[in-house]
């Protein structure tokens, strides 16, 4: 019984957290525009009039791209650091580095 109450409370908390999160999404405008997400969701067949769900998908995609970019940056930095150890004088002038996959 206690376990059930705890689980029910937990579920309520989770529900509230989710609803709060969706509400907060309306304040936070993701970098990926809603129109783009709507276009590709419509292309896939997903029909939804709720704007918050579209924002959720946009934020999820933004997170995915940011993760990929971060990992690529780490890889690039590691490569640059390995090269710099061998040739310090020549590489000091070059500050900018490109994304690589």
């Amino acid at each position, binding site marked *: 019984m206690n376990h059930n109450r705890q689980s029910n409370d937990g579920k309520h908390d989770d529900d509230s957290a989710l609803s709060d*999160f969706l509400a907060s999404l309306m304040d936070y405008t993701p*970098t*990926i525009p809603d129109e783009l997400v*709507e276009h590709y969701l419509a292309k*896939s067949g997903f029909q939804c009039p709720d704007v918050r769900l579209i924002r959720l998908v946009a934020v*999820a995609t*933004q997170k*995915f791209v*940011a993760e990929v970019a971060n990992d690529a940056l780490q890889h690039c930095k590691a490569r640059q650091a390995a090269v710099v150890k061998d040739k310090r004088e020549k590489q000091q002038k070059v500050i900018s580095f490109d*994304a690589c996959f």
Partner: protein
Amino acid sequence: MNNGCLENRKKEHDNSQKRPKSYKFGSKSDDFALAIAKVAVAQLCESVGFQGFHLSALETLSDISVRYIYSIGKTANLSANLAGRVEGNVFDIIHGLEDLGSNLGFSGASDVDRCVVSSGVVKDITHFVGVSDFIPFAYDVSGFPVVKESTKTGSFWEKEEVPPGEHIPSWLPAFPDPETYATRLSVENETMGVSNGKKTESELERVERTMDRSLLNLQLRFAHNENKGGSSHGSGYVATESNPYLAAPLHVGEKEVSPVVLPTKLSNEVALRNPVHVDVGNHVSVLETFAPAIEAMKSGLCDSDNGKKKLLYDQRPTVRFKIGIGKKSLGTISDFGSQNEEDLLKIASWFGNDNEKDDKKRRVEKILKESVESSKE
């Protein structure tokens, strides 16, 4: 972090046209959406800390992000349909995110009795939203694709028209107005027939007047061209006005034309001379050589023809062609009553003769003798 600087956008747009069209989302109709995705992805990478971007890398990452959105939508739609719904909800999307994130893993993925609401995916996203900076999209994007509004034609019943046949129900779209597809002539005839007699006459007169005017103009043009026929040809302005192809044909002797010269002899010196200075009387065609023969065959020979032949023979040696007419031809020639003996002989010489052959043999012998004598000398 270092401030990033992106590549020139124009170069990207120019180079993007050269990319292969093998991508699923690389069709021409998707170019606009992909361009927007590229801008968004570039902005995100800049926020992460990149300073430059290879075009191929940008295209790849934007394509992947677009496919990510597409796959989320597909999975969410699938789960909604499985649940018997047409429209998706938040749980369908979380299911889709969990499916995509199952490769990398998320907190609580291994729990058997996990609830969708308390999914680790949502928590990760919540954390990300709290940490990341607010980066608005660079451009204002309007809703796309723009749906063209189709102009619906009303049905017979809506237009309160009677269908022109019992087999046509009234709920079908009405036919277009007959004026839109009827020919102009028929319409004009109707209008001319309906209008008064005076009006029709005036219209006819107008048509006739225009025709006459156009004809007059043409005639004037031809007359103008005739006057200008042999005059200056230097200026292009004149050439455009007087079209030589529309000019009236010239009569014989109107314009001085350079004479056409036929070669008289291959070994003759006359051929080496300037052909322009040869007389007109020397111009002979093959037909002309045989014309007198043909005329002599058909009818009596005239003195004028003889004169012409004499001229021919004086000025150049005869060209003898063996046509293959045998002795019978001679017989036919001799049947002509009003023939002169001289003319007969001449005709016989043309058509080959035993006497001729003897003459040839004699000539050959003479030439051989002369050559032998010259060689001896």
